[in-house]
């Protein structure tokens, strides 16, 4: 069953082409990774998937719903955490999570129990009642991830989910994502940490300058000599050793 479907999607910002006829599919219970350097169009793809942006050409469908015409329904089905989550600094972590629960219509009694469970798992006890403006990047990332998962979404769209996290929390996120997968949920993540992709993704797609270079099953790409080699082979046409030697001179 196809859960996320990008069909020849293009998106431009003025003169800049952020995505150029990108197509891929994510199945049910699958973790799909978008890999690529900065500016390759990963975050734009994520935002298109959530319905925050509208494609100029092509279509994005989540569980069969078009993100353009049924944006509200799609937003209800998806849990999203952006790359640099800007939260409301004047709220405490708990108030923020309570606010997000309210947005998704969670019952008050359900909220407390859920928030407490996540806060404990991410080691945020003792900090959750402090104002967000005092939080580190990692703590903000944790709050944003919890907010994305609070309403039990069918699909998770996580932009660089482990960036800025301490090793323990990064491990928790990875295990949590595997758990979500076992529950039949689909996950679309973007990352430039290849180890993360190798550890949790079933399939990956490599992107560069808004184009999808290659996509395939993780085990197939690993057979080709490891993700890093494939990535570098496609990404860097020049000989990296020459670049490094030039820098060391």
């Amino acid at each position, binding site marked *: 069953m196809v859960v996320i479907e990008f069909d020849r999607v293009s998106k431009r*910002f003025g003169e*800049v082409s*952020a995505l150029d006829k990108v197509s891929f599919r994510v199945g049910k219970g699958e973790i799909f990774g978008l890999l690529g350097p900065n500016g390759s169009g990963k*975050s*734009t793809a994520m935002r298109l998937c*959530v*319905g*925050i*942006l*509208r494609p100029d050409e092509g279509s994005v469908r989540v569980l069969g719903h078009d993100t353009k015409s049924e*944006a*509200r*329904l799609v*937003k*209800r089905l*998806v849990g*999203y955490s*952006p790359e640099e989550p*800007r*939260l*409301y600094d*004047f*709220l405490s972590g708990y*108030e923020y999570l*309570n*606010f*997000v*629960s*309210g*947005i*998704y*219509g969670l*019952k*008050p009694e359900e909220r407390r129990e859920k928030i407490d469970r996540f806060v404990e798992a991410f080691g945020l006890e003792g900090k959750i009642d402090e*104002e967000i403006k005092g939080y580190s990047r990692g703590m903000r990332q944790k709050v944003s991830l919890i*907010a994305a998962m609070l309403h039990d979404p069918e699909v998770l769209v996580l932009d660089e989910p482990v960036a800025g996290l301490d090793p323990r929390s990064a491990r928790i996120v990875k295990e949590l994502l595997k758990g979500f997968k076992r529950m039949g949920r689909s996950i679309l993540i973007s990352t430039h940490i290849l180890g993360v992709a190798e550890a949790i993704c079933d399939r990956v797609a490599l992107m560069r300058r808004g184009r999808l270079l290659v996509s395939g099953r993780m085990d197939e790409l690993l057979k080709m000599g490891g993700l890093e080699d494939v990535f570098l082979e496609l990404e860097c046409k020049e000989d990296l050793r020459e670049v490094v030697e030039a820098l060391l001179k």
Partner: protein
Amino acid sequence: MNLRRVLSLSAIELLYSAGGSNWLLLLLVWVSASTFLLGYLIGSYYLASALALGRLYLWGFLLALATSTTYELQRISKHRYDDPVSWLPLKDEELVTSSLIHHLVTSSPIILGLFSGVLFGLSRRGIDPGLSPIFISIMLVYIYLAASLSFSFRPLIGRLAGLVRRGRPFLRFLLNLGLLVSYLIILTAGLGLLPSLGELWYIPISWPYYSLDLFLSGRHEAFLLMLSMTASLCVFTYLLSIEAYGRSKFELPPPRMPAGFWGKGPVVAIVEKDLKAFVRKPELLGYFSVPALLLFLIFAQPGSANLAFTTTLGLGIFVEMVGVSMLGLEGAGVWRLVSSPLSARQLLASKLTVPMLMGSWAMLPLVSALHIKGVMPDLRTLVVMASVIPSVSAGSVYLGFKAASYSETPYPKVVKPIPSLIAMVLGILISLLVGSPLILGLDPFLAPMASALFSLAFLFAGMKEAERLLGGYRSLGR
């Protein structure tokens, strides 16, 4: 009928309406205090030397009807198939009685606060308010009648609303509103609120008033007759509401309102968050200086010429400042709203609520200050002042969509300078237009009409802006 069960049910319903025990007492105190102040102003300035009792009771009865209609609307959002009352072995009369007790308890602070205020205001002017406790007890009868009559119409409204597939909550709202208007026409025999109940003896709803009148004039036989007729009316409406409940309980349940329209949904969540922003964000806290400045001006100005008008204008500016910031205060966190499953209506409703609330709150100390200063803020002035709030709120929130600055570098701006200037000019213009009856000597009821027109126009424009924002926040770029 099991009395303990009835009392438990009404207590549960009471806590349900208040949103929990923590809020119940605070809510009751707040409502009583506000309505007392309003009643005091009416008693002190509005009522003529001869107390038009009938008219007063009519107002009270209409107020009670309005509150019971509101509770009826709340039922639409709160009661569902899986409510225990739908499947527990409870008798119809137990449920109806508990609901009536709940209505009496929740309506009482409004009505009693208002009437105590009126009587206090009258006595302050040296007008004998008569037997105040009896007045108030008669008012309780009116609250009861309002509640039981509202219940009686429930199946009719439920069935009419069932005729349409979409928009049932809205239709229910309109029908309840229609019911209120019908009561008004029937009760006043189409003559509006001008004649007192003394001319409407043939209408059963005037009987409680007549009982009081006959008692006070010492006609005891006639009083007993009228009292028994009043009691019969109460029993009749009670039986009618039980019958109506019996007919309505096996219908399809009323559709649930979208979360957030009423109750703890997205609208309430956003409003709570925004209110916190106003007291915690330093760049927004400064807005409270406007009402403070107005208070200072009221006391500092020698004489009181045009003071009510100036205050109205200042109130408009305060509401405009709050309204235009409503979207910009999201700052870089606006992605949260855009990525959430909000409808344009929910977004607009939440952003409109805060300036309207803050305008209403600011109005209370301003009106009190005017009163202390010796300006007579009669009902007409209050109508004009209150009319400024919705129109300026709608206009400024609409412009706030265009003026919002989400950037937090080099410092958070909330609104862009030029659109904010335009919004300020517009806010002043609307306040001038809506508030003009105060200075031009026009009919003050032109103000709500003008306000409604402005509000509607800006609401339509605001909906378009909200839809555009939720469809993709292009202004934020990549």
